[in-house]
């Protein structure tokens, strides 16, 4: 980790989300010769979003591997390496390109252990930069994580802070199963405290980012930041917001959500993926079919991406996914609703 990227703020070491991931990758490679990073332009270029940075220089071209543009082949290569004793970490340059690799991820990685009667495991990690907000338009801005939450055999993470980006990555590399990590492009430059040592965050555990009595907002990735900003404003209006950061979409930490909703009676789920069939659908359904159902004092509200591809024009783009103001408005609406 070059010294210049480590800044000090209030006595805690601050790293950007990208730096935290890089530090995690470096520590995993230092600790375990089985770990390697590969993908398009992860080497000399340092990664399309600069995540791998100097890793090539530090670990050499046998462990930080630039590849041809062959997403299906790369995903399969991760499967094969994982099956035979390695711990591959694959970067799919934009998560949109995972559409080319679905076969290997869904039919092979996710199913091999089960199909082989539990006699094999596929410990691979796929990192997928996703999300909108960069003006990259419809084929470079999608949030496709919900698809993978539908696939038994996979684990699916969506870290929102530099701390979690590193801790969840290290946990994913340790995990004996295929783990997909959806990183948000707009978060790469956001900073936060990151311990220097190699620590793990548990996969499948949500965290309560803010406590409140009146309304529960569940989100992940960048939406928890926008929700936090909205919660500040709601606090000014006397509304206590509890924010749950999912971190993991598969498995999903229903207990933490349930506990909060039991307390607040109101649930707003915010996500960037298309609203229909996005992760909010599953959370709403889990609540609606559970005991917590009776604790609701208002209908569940979902705020998700618009029913359209991501547009190029900046104002259209903003309008197509939940922004802080949308969250604020949705929370206010929900506070005025009652069960009929």
């Amino acid at each position, binding site marked *: 980790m070059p010294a210049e990227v480590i800044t000090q703020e209030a006595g805690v070491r601050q790293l950007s989300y990208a730096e935290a991931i890089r530090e995690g990758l470096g520590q995993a490679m230092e600790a375990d010769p089985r770990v390697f990073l590969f993908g398009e332009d992860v080497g000399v*270029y340092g990664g399309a979003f600069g995540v791998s940075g100097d890793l090539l220089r530090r670990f050499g071209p046998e462990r930080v591997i630039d590849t*041809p543009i062959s997403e299906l082949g790369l995903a399969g290569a991760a499967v094969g390496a994982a099956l035979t004793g390695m711990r591959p970490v694959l970067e799919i340059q934009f998560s949109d390109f995972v559409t080319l690799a679905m076969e290997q991820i869904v039919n092979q990685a996710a199913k091999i252990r089960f199909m082989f009667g539990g006699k094999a495991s596929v410990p691979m990690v796929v990192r997928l930069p996703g999300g909108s907000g960069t003006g*990259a*338009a419809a084929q470079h801005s999608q949030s496709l994580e919900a698809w993978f939450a539908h696939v038994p055999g996979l684990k699916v993470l969506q870290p929102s802070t530099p701390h979690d980006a590193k801790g969840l990555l290290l946990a994913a590399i340790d995990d004996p199963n295929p783990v997909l990590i959806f990183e948000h492009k707009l978060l790469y430059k956001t900073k936060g405290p990151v311990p220097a040592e190699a620590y793990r965050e548990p996969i499948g555990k949500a965290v309560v980012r803010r406590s409140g009595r009146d309304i529960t907002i569940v989100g992940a990735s960048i939406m928890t930041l926008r929700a936090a900003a909205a919660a500040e404003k709601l606090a000014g209006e006397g509304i206590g917001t509890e924010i749950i950061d999912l971190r993991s979409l598969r498995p999903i930490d229903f207990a933490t959500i349930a506990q909060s909703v039991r307390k607040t009676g109101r649930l707003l789920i915010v996500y960037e993926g298309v609203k229909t069939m996005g992760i909010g659908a599953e959370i709403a359904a889990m609540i609606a079919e559970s005991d917590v159902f009776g604790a609701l004092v208002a209908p569940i509200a979902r705020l998700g991406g618009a029913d*359209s591809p991501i547009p190029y024009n900046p104002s259209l783009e903003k309008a197509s996914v939940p922004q802080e103001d949308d969250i604020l408005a949705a929370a206010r609406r929900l506070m005025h609703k009652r069960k009929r």
Partner: protein
Amino acid sequence: MQIPAADSATAAAVREKPALQRGELSALDDATLRAALRRMHLIRKFEEVAEQSYMRGLVHGTMHLSIGQEASAVGSTLHLRPDDYILSTHRGHGHCIAKGADPARMLAEFFGKETGYCRGRGGSMHIADLTTGNLGANGIVAGGLPIAVGVGMSIKAQKQSRVCMVFFGDGAANEGAFHESLNMAAIWKLPVVFLCENNKYGMSMDIANAMAVANVADRASAYGTRGITVDGNDLPAVAAAAKIAIDQARQGDGPTLLECKTYRLRGHSKSDRNLYRTKDEIEAWRQRDPIRRLQDELVAQQRIEARELAAIEQGAQHEIEEALEFAKSSADPDPAQLTRDVYAG
């Protein structure tokens, strides 16, 4: 744009300077050459203006400039007919202008305006102009190749005499889509020209590391079809090679894999720090700038006078300046119409 063989002016040119002029050049008449040169300038200036606008923060997103690759875009499309199709790439401004799109509406799209070709929905990576047969740029590397197969099937089924030219890069030639598309086009003898712009790099990976053959066109043999490699910075040479491929496609002789060896003088996109190549390499290719090369040859061969060159360049400059005004002054789309065009009908 005329097909030179049927053109008497060309024949005259050939007669006049037989000893000096190579066949690829003499095959092109003066009007064609002037038009080609103008388009190369238009592309160059379009991209320079795009780059400046980007640097000044007037546009967001990203862009992929083809500065240095203009001969391949203009040369390969020179013998296409207006109703022939093209499918383009993320680095597609050149193809788009070469096929006849209006730079003003392209720039408007780049600025995200309602007057843009995609009404601001697509941006630089998705410009399409169906009126000139341009079926669109593509943000997915090799994304256009399978589509070209379908266009070829469609042309055949409708018994049209059209041709579809699909552009892609050297990096795209390692995608599975390349393989599946070349194979299907070959077995069905589809009227498709696979036009590979080999600019030596994907985003940062040198083709020498990304494939173990010297030329992308060497792969044509795996599909039992023709492969041609040409100096992609040499407009007359590109045009001549493309003419063969286009004619054969139109005659029902199936696809050609035509590779133009060229170079992008700018970085891959805005975030590129050029860590993967040397300044010397870039400089060496700058010496082979396709616009300057063509101009020098035309002057040397007395096909055009030096002062005319300046006029052509100025004309292009003027058109792009007007285009910029149009783009800037156009209206933004209405966010209330966000989901309007998701579905047809």
